[in-house]
């Protein structure tokens, strides 16, 4: 494989289930040794896209190659996939599940024992997985997926159901594989997972809306105005922000239009407190997924 060759390349990938189109012309290129995070709202086909990239689902149209080989011909040798709930069988224990996958994949290593220890699951391996919480299942599934000695890992919402105190531990074990030279593509709708990413791609069923480094994406977000309190209706703010304000807890946040000023928003907001703030990953998510398409 040449240094410039993409690890994974998807071109015009479409996927339909019957009359329902889930993906409509997705293009994606993943470079060696990067972590690419696919972020998007629920139900927009992130899991379907990841399954297509892994060869688990055949696209209706388009092409996908891993290391220059069509993914269907690769036969799962170059990658390891984590699908939520895809590995666990309720009636098996964690250890039995690991033994099953150890026999299935010729590149499976004993690394999973280290990972379940790091993630605090080692003491629960003899329990049947039907007694696991969602977070515990993710711990097991991530440990098993990363135990395969593959150059490419495709992880479907690896931190879903995981409490915030454990997220950094999850990121650490993923980083462990990246430090060994692997490439990671993960889906998420949790802004905290952006900490893990070298690049973030915001996606919806129509394709990739924006893809860049986290800093570049944050730089691309217009000035964020934060509106706290006040009785003014959100409609009053609409002329001055891109699309419409987004609720963030009790406060409203909006993206200032190029032709508007903060004073315009203050005037429209009445007695509310209005200030500008640095954009967060949540703001970036809302901007690229919901607001920016309306701005075009």
């Amino acid at each position: 494989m040449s240094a410039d060759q993409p690890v994974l390349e998807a071109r015009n990938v479409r996927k339909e289930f019957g009359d329902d189109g889930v993906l409509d012309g997705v293009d994606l290129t993943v470079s060696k040794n990067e972590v690419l995070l696919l972020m998007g709202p629920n139900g927009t086909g992130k899991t379907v896209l990841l399954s297509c990239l892994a060869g688990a689902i055949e696209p209706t149209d388009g092409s996908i190659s891993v290391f220059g080989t069509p993914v269907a011909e690769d036969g799962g040798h170059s990658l390891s996939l984590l699908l939520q709930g895809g590995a666990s069988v309720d009636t098996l224990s964690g250890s039995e599940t690991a033994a099953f996958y150890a026999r299935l994949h010729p590149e499976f290593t004993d690394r999973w024992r280290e990972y379940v220890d790091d993630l605090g699951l080692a003491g629960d391996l003899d329990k049947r997985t039907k007694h696991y919480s969602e977070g515990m299942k993710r711990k097991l599934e991530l440990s098993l997926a990363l135990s395969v000695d593959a150059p490419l890992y495709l992880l479907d919402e690896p931190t879903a159901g995981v409490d915030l105190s454990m997220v950094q531990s999850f990121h650490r074990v993923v980083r462990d594989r990246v430090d060994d030279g692997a490439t990671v593509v993960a889906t998420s709708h949790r802004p905290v997972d952006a900490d893990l990413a070298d690049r973030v791609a915001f996606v919806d069923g129509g394709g990739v809306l924006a893809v860049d480094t986290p800093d570049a994406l944050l730089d691309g977000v217009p000035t964020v105005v934060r509106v706290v309190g006040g009785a003014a209706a959100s409609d009053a703010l609409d002329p001055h922000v891109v699309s419409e304000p987004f609720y963030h807890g009790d406060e409203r946040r909006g993206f200032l239009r190029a032709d508007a000023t903060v004073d315009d928003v203050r005037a429209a907001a009445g007695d509310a407190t209005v200030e500008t703030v640095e954009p967060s990953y949540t703001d970036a998510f809302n901007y690229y997924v919901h607001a920016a398409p309306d701005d075009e």
Partner: protein
Amino acid sequence: MSIETRGLPPVGRLTEQTTAFAVRTLQTLRRNGAVLFWAVAFPAGFYLLSVYLFIDTSGMPEGVASVVKATNAVSYGTFAALTVFLNTFSQSLVADVEDGRYAQFRALPVVPAADFLGRFAAAYLFAVAAVLAVLGVGAATGAEYALRSALSVPIALLGLLALGLFAASVAVVLVAAVPDAKFASIVAVSVVMLAFFLTGYNGVQPGMLAGAADFVNVVPNALATRLAVHHVVPVGDWTRAGLAAPGAPTGTGHLALLAGYAVAGLGLAVVATRRSLYRGEVQ
């Protein structure tokens, strides 16, 4: 990091993956109370109802009653095996389809044949245990067994193997073909019941069939049952025992037919597993 497969050669991988599916299937089966009920308790209970309520053995000479009970035990043993090969097997597939595990398997370098062979090996062991359980209940109620020769047990087991491969292939096709996978199990149960009744209780009561009953020496469930009866039950006169006509399936043609069922079943199952479960999109 190398991407070359540093693991086992293809045959070794097939063996490892077959073992993986077999072990996992046995683990899940033995922990499933519903499976144990339908595959063991239900056929055994059905047998007891037959020999105590449906068939009047009280007026029969002792030697005849013990043979009738043994013949029925073999029949219900086959019923138990067929339940395992069709219903339990399809349930195991449906669970993996409905829980999305086939999407996971398709992204792994799994040899589809290993998937089928592993599940089948587990189902076969489970079916043998179910048959032995029903035969044991039969023995406890006075059924008499006798081996015709040293080859009787291997032949009966091979008959069960052939029936199993054929029935399991039907289960795979059902799961692949029925639009909503969970209904495949219902269809599978229906097939078991139809096969049992339409062949005169797996071929041991051809006299109850309205037309010519020669087909009981042809269709796989009845043929395997009658072959087993010939080898493990001291029937003596098949006509007096109600097992004829036709006579016992003792010709090499009958064995060849069973071998044909086994080969066709294995081929169909492997092709259906590869094309439908590993390349299709059974969701």
